[in-house]
């Protein structure tokens, strides 16, 4: 750097500043991942040792995992959560990309006003819509089934439309004009040109949709009967907490089992995920 000489007189200060800086960073990290480390440590402890403060357990056991798996009917919970999250994701990807495609490339009267209206709905708290939706699903006879948890995803969503539209607008219109000259319909341009080219944005939306559905507690509490065979992971965990209040080693094993898939998924797609969040803040 050309102006590096300016920093020289304060070199000693810099060392101290750096030490403080790394100390703060490590303290922050400790607070952020402490609960996760504590969870893993406890999940490996023998039930009697759960109050032992040691981080590395004296005696390591894997029994908690098999106990948790059986007590919690995990296969039902995981399957229910997975089914709902997968269907929600598919619904969001299809319908949001359809809407976003139109908002990005088709000129029609009132487009801008409609798009602003759509974005404005992002500020409406979900509680404003939850009661009528509950009544509609109940009237349709879907109360107690998983349908109310994934069907709404098939009606688009302002966030997904916004995210994909931003991406679609970076695709040159020449591609579309050429395809139109060849007589391609809008439907096939959406499916054959825009969707394949927008893979990164679709991936980002897929992750958002999957994770928010996988972690959703409120909707599952409202619509699903609270037994371990019919409900989702978040509700299952909170039921388990009530039933086995003091069985901390088993409970931490259950928590560990439930967060592992999402953590692995996140590890692989963190770049798109973080870019997606950053995109909502600046633009």
């Amino acid at each position, binding site marked *: 750097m050309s102006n590096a000489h300016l920093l020289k007189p304060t070199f000693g200060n810099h060392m101290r500043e750096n030490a403080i800086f790394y100390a703060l960073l490590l303290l922050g990290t400790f*607070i952020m991942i402490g609960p996760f480390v504590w969870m893993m440590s406890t999940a490996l402890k023998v039930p009697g040792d759960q109050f032992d403060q040691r981080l590395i357990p004296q005696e390591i056991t894997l029994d908690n995992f098999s106990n948790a798996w059986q007590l919690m009917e995990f296969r039902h919970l995981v399957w229910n959560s997975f089914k709902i999250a997968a269907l929600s994701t598919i619904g969001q990807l299809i319908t949001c990309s359809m809407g976003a495609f*139109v908002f990005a490339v088709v*000129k029609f009267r009132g487009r801008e006003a409609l798009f602003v209206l759509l*974005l404005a709905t992002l*500020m409406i708290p979900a509680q404003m819509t939850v*009661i009528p939706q509950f009544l509609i699903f109940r009237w349709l006879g879907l109360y107690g089934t998983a349908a109310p948890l994934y069907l709404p995803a098939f009606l688009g969503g302002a966030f997904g439309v916004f995210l994909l539209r931003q991406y679609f607008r970076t695709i040159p219109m020449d591609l579309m004009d050429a395809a139109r000259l060849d007589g391609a319909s809008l439907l096939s341009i959406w499916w054959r040109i825009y969707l394949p080219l927008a893979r990164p944005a679709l991936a980002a939306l897929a992750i958002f949709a999957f994770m928010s559905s996988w972690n959703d507690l*409120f909707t599952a509490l409202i619509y699903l009967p609270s037994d371990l065979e019919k409900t989702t992971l978040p509700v299952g965990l909170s039921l388990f907490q009530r039933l086995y209040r003091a069985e901390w080693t088993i409970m931490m094993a259950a928590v560990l089992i439930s967060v592992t898939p*999402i953590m692995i998924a996140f590890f692989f797609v963190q770049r798109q995920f973080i870019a997606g*969040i950053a995109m909502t803040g600046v633009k």
Partner: protein
Amino acid sequence: MTFLPNIRLECGVMQVDGMTPKGRERFWTGVLLTPTMLGLGLGVLGSIFATLWLGFYDWDLFTAPEWVGLENYTDLPGDRRFMQSLRVTTLFSAIYVPGTVILSIAIALLLNRHVVGKSLFRLFFFLPVVTSPVAVGLVWSWIYSRDQGLLNNMLSTVGMDPVYWLGRDMALYSVVVVNIWGAVGEGMIIFLAGLQAIPKNLYEAAMLDGASRSKQFWRITLPLLIPSIFFQVILSTINAFQAFDYVYVLTSTQGGGSTMPTLVFNLYREGFKFFRMGDAAAQAVVLAGIIMVLTLIYNQLQKRWG
């Protein structure tokens, strides 16, 4: 997680371009737009009107709805549970919003420097954002546990009395801490994006003029971060008024109540446990009204400062 694109800026860059549909293309435009329009019309706008309308009725789902006019609203100030949830949520927001914003900025500043293993640190701070609040909430419920929890064990080793962290006196503060812990990762990303948008040559010029580090922060970094700060304040306010998951996991009591009943917890109970649909609708309207008014105030302030 709630997401809210910056609408004000978005409108500024919007261009009227694209192709004009002809013939069958008009048909396909309609088809492609249908789900989004149904979702907007039926799922959101229709539901909002339905909620407003339901607020004028007394309805338990089983007997016929009865028109009561504004009674559901006028009853709210005398409703002990609602007023308590309003107090709790207001106090919660007053701690949560500044806490989240300030800590997120601090972390973003720390990670915006040259750091060994930067992306790993970023991952650590971000972890609570992607994991289920119920799952990590359970870990916290143990950390806070009265008889066997980590915190009280630590207190007892230094000879102090155990604290009832999730009891009525402390629950609010304990739950705020967990909510902030769960949200700083998201705020950090927003502020890192904001920091990276600041032109580097401003700092070079300031350094040549001999401006100190703190002066650079107050004169360059902070003023240019103001749009991100407003964005994050609005986002945090919305999240604070909608707090539910950690509250449910950490503070639910045997009788179905809570030691820290927030507005949404109370709404959940009124509407979906007691099936008092009219009351719940009125409370939803009040909640939306509060969020809307606060957002408008922030927007006005941003116009003046931004």
